[in-house]
């Protein structure tokens, strides 16, 4: 630009130009929250939200968040349903990429190993992607390129610890627990289980863990496993911790079928709508004692907005500190006592309200999930 102005005669036009340039530089330099550095055309760009399936409430929430953000920004949205299969998910993502538009993508990967393939394809399509929850630990965004804008998640270890504290509290420090992890090849599941076990080992020696039965995030498999555990241990079981509410729902059904629901305590992660209902109604003699709060719509909105900012040029990924590219966002512990604080996030219009706050304060500083850390979670005791 300087070169151009050198050729123009020194006059008001040139000064005006220079002032505009300075003003623009100041505006971008002031950081986020100002007008986008570059408006994205809906013909050229497309927002993509890829979820593991479309029947899990968390995933449905992911889609809602993406819709709210896409509406706010005026860009078209495509939804990718992986149908619980890495193959299908990647296939469908590729199909969208082949359609010729550049993607701004949020992916909730089926398996960690999906991440490199998807990121690579997005790069070749000239797009930007944020991955949530699962990726290979050694696969770092700053080693890959700007198109891999960020990897984001809520810490699993704190989730496990929340659940452990709630159960231990409800059992007064003495009792026997069974665990239902999720898909085994999932760092999400592994970190949560590690957090639970660490909390018990460090602070609640009176609690014994009877057995672990991975249930693939699936309510049916959890129900079957719970049934088998009930037969195996009978009323020895005092509590059940599941890595995710989907499995807890199945497990609770099995305990109810066996007539044991009132005697057993449950804790899990996610505060699904059904779980919320059960806590409020006091189902099973207040069976659910602990949960964690985070919402799918928040995750997808934050992830998509991060990628969006990279696409507009408002943030330059290679200039971001590592904790903003491999990020841990705040997770809240919920008990029947403080559940009232969280009801506002499920009211109609909550996703749109969240998106307004998000665009105003940026992806790393929006309530109720500010950035709290970064990097690979260290498993306690490892």
């Amino acid at each position, binding site marked *: 630009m300087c070169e151009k102005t050198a050729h123009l005669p020194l006059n008001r036009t040139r000064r005006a130009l220079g002032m505009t340039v300075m003003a623009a530089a100041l505006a971008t330099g002031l950081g986020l929250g100002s007008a986008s550095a570059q408006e994205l055309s809906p013909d050229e760009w497309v927002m993509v939200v890829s979820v593991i399936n479309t029947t899990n409430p968390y995933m449905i929430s992911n889609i809602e968040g993406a819709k709210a953000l896409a509406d706010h920004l005026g860009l078209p949205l495509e939804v990718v349903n992986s149908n619980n299969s*890495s193959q299908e998910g990647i296939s469908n993502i590729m199909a969208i*990429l*082949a359609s010729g538009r550049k993607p701004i993508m949020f992916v909730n990967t089926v398996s960690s190993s999906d*991440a490199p393939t998807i990121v690579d*394809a997005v790069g070749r399509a000239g797009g930007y992607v944020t991955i949530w929850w699962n990726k290979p630990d050694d696969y770092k965004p700053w080693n890959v390129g700007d198109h891999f804008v960020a990897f984001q998640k809520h810490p699993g270890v704190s989730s496990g610890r929340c659940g452990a504290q709630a159960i231990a509290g409800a059992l007064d420090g003495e009792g026997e627990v069974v665990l239902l992890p999720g898909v085994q090849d999932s760092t999400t599941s592994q970190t949560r289980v590690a957090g639970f076990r660490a909390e018990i080992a460090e602070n609640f020696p009176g609690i014994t863990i009877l057995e672990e039965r991975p249930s693939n995030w699936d309510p049916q498999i959890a129900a079957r496993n719970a049934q088998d555990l009930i037969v195996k241990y009978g009323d020895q079981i005092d509590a059940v911790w599941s890595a995710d509410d989907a499995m807890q729902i199945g497990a609770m059904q099995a305990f109810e079928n066996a007539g044991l629901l009132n005697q057993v305590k449950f804790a899990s992660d996610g505060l699904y709508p059904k779980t919320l209902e059960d806590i409020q109604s006091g189902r099973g003699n207040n069976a659910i004692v602990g949960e964690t709060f985070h919402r799918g719509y928040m995750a997808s909105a934050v992830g998509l907005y991060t990628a969006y900012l990279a696409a507009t040029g408002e943030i330059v990924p290679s200039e971001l500190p590592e904790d903003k590219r491999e990020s841990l966002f705040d997770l809240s512990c919920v008990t029947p006592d403080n559940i009232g604080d969280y009801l506002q996030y499920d009211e109609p219009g909550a996703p749109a309200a969240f998106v307004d706050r998000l665009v105003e304060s940026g992806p790393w500083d929006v309530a109720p999930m500010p950035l709290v850390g970064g990097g690979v979670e260290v498993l306690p005791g490892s």
Partner: protein
Amino acid sequence: MTDHSEILMNRTTLAKPLGGRLSRLASGHVIAPPLVFAVMLGAVWLLNPNYLSPFGISIVAATAAPILLLALGQATVLNVGSIDLSNAATSLLGTILLAMILPGYGFWGILAILALVTVIGAIVAYAQVPSFALTLGTLGVLQTAALVTSDSQTIYLGANRELVSTLYTTNVGFVPLSFWLAVAVALVFWAALQFTRAGQSMTAMGKNETAAILSGVPVRGLRIAAFAVSGFLGGVAGLAILAQAGSASASGIGSALLLPGIAAALVGGASISGGQTNPLNVIFGALTVAFVPMAIQALGVGAQSQSLVYGLFIILVVALTTTRSRGIVIK
């Protein structure tokens, strides 16, 4: 060439002169697979030409490569009248093993794994038992082997990655090398089936096994060979998958290729009861199966309707390409 296997082949082939041969070539089931693929391509191009851009083509080909390799292995086994349900699991195990030893052993690792999967394939055929049931069992065993060897973790390729990823990153005419490799394999197979005694005997076995046995065709050995080929191609498919994914996992990409592989073989005109296989058409079968998700996307079908449309598509496509000569019993 008065080969005994020739006598067993369709009598019309021998009896008719060259003109008859040509008319047989032009018959429905030989033309159908490429035709169906071309129609689908054309329809999608009308909806959105971008799908046929260099990027789009390379995506289809990269997805089709492992499917094609598995389908070729499957077609070989189908040709002798059996079925291999475990070839995708073999391929998955191969991917994991490869990811584990590649950083340490490089090229020799690749050869070792290929040898291993070939042996697995051969063992499957050794007992003279119905292949559907047997390979269903080996499927379970191999799945567990995959889980156990990977310790339920994702194995991310660090060192020596370029040895395999070149298959994916090098393009010849917009299409990755892995696909051309698969096409080369298809050509080799086609030649083997047409011109070698072993190949013709396999086809004869598929058409009428009892008669083949009575004519002294080494049925047992050929069956073992067919399964060994399926195992070997499963390993090569594992290579192609690893090249694209850069990491291996028991639940990740490559763990759900069994049904697409079989569908690709069937769409490519392979008969499920044996004796009818054209590896060149299997290429189009694999391309078609790989292309269906894109066609669905181009149609603008919502995320939730995808399964429904996929089911309809599969039935339609195979209905159009399946062999319907008189007297053949379709099961």
